[in-house]
């Protein structure tokens, strides 16, 4: 676990889960294939990452597969933060 992964996980929980949701998610929980995040609401996540880390993620890197877990999302972000 590193700080970036924790920041992304906190954001995902706050942004996509409802208070009454009982499910718990972690760094390797599937987000998109499980239906927690859909392709429409995924834009919020991409925009958050771009603003937070002052980067621009091309659409072909922000695929549902690449964004399916917090750990994978952090990998994509690191590609652009260097």
């Amino acid at each position, binding site marked *: 676990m590193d700080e970036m992964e924790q920041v992304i996980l906190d954001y995902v929980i706050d942004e996509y889960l409802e208070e009454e949701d009982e499910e718990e998610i972690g760094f390797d929980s599937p987000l998109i294939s499980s*239906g927690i995040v859909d392709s*429409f609401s995924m*834009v*919020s996540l991409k925009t958050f990452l771009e603003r937070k880390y002052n980067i621009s993620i091309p659409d072909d890197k922000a695929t549902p597969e690449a964004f399916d877990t917090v750990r994978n999302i952090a990998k994509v972000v690191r590609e652009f933060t260097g």
Partner: protein
Amino acid sequence: MAYSNDARKFYQDELNGIKEAGVFKEERYIQSPQAADISVEYPEGAPTKEVINMCSNNYLGLSSHPEVIKASHEGLDSRGFGMSSVRFICGTQDIHRSLEEKLTKFLETEDTILFASCMDANAGVFEAIFDDRDVLIADRLVHASIVDGMRLCKALNESFKHLNMDHLEKKLQTYQDARFRCIVTDGVFSMDGDTAKLDEMVALAEKYDAMVFVDDSHSTGFLGKHGKGTHELKGVLGKIDIITTTLGKALGGASGGCVSGRKELVEMCRQRARPYLFSNAMPPVVVAASNKVMDIIMSTTERRDKLENNTKFWRKGLTEAGFDLREGDTPIVPIMLYNAKLSQDMSRDLYDEGIYAIGFFFPVVAKGQARIRTQISAAHDIEHLEKALAAFTKVGRKYDILGKGKNEIIEMYGL
């Protein structure tokens, strides 16, 4: 041959995949006008069966109303069959403009523009008005046509949790640096029958300098005291900047939609909305009949009042029978079953009992949220609803779900 065997095999496999996933949609042939009682041929080739329709958008029962049919005949005789033109070349008749004016008056907006459908209105309106300097902040459960329209527009596509005003406020705060902000929502959400908090949205829009967009397709004609829609129900008439709605549901149900709202925004659609510029004008027969629909609903609230009473009767009856309903007070009444197969099995059994009601499951609704969605109409008489209630109760008893809540149903049938 350009359509090669490989191509054919690919699409055959795709279609088989849809069938194997259990989400292949089949159409049932109705051999009567749209009404509370319909004759249905299903499956194909089977003898027709008389059933009570519990799943149409014919909320006001105007789809086959004698006065509407008469007006369509008159429109056909006086204005012809087709326009053979888009609106701005030679496709605008006096009756097109008069329908736009009636919609403006009814919805209490500044101006209105007709589209071939509300799908087209939603596909065209955002791109015509907003660009990459703007941000659209939509409820996450908005209709698919809004999602498509937003994607066609260069504005940033943002979203907030369903009906969650705190989350919306956070998003509005985040994007104070954009040129324009627009809150985007359905008035009534078609799968759950719940209603947008338009009063709170308008307050937030005023606080954070945002416009408000509402697709009121599932409420125009019957929600609010005069049936004007969600904005009347929530006390914000005149405060919604963009309303899109349909003529294909309560308002006669034939086809057509519109954008109604601030006059400059409507004019921008007339100049720039691609589905408006590049598709045919609405046919005169539909426009003439829709004019009559507007006359009817502006002269009396009788039909929306009947719909309201029917809805109360139906919700009360199902609740007393022990079904697990989505809360709400709209004519969309979902009976929650959670399990996809259960929704299909019950729908089939209801059909055997003479009730036409459809089960919905993923991907139309979220996983584990399968249901039978019932829709009430002013075309229903209490006798229809009593018969339907008896059938639902019989089928509900068969599956032993009466009086059971979410967890118990899931325990019995799984997700």
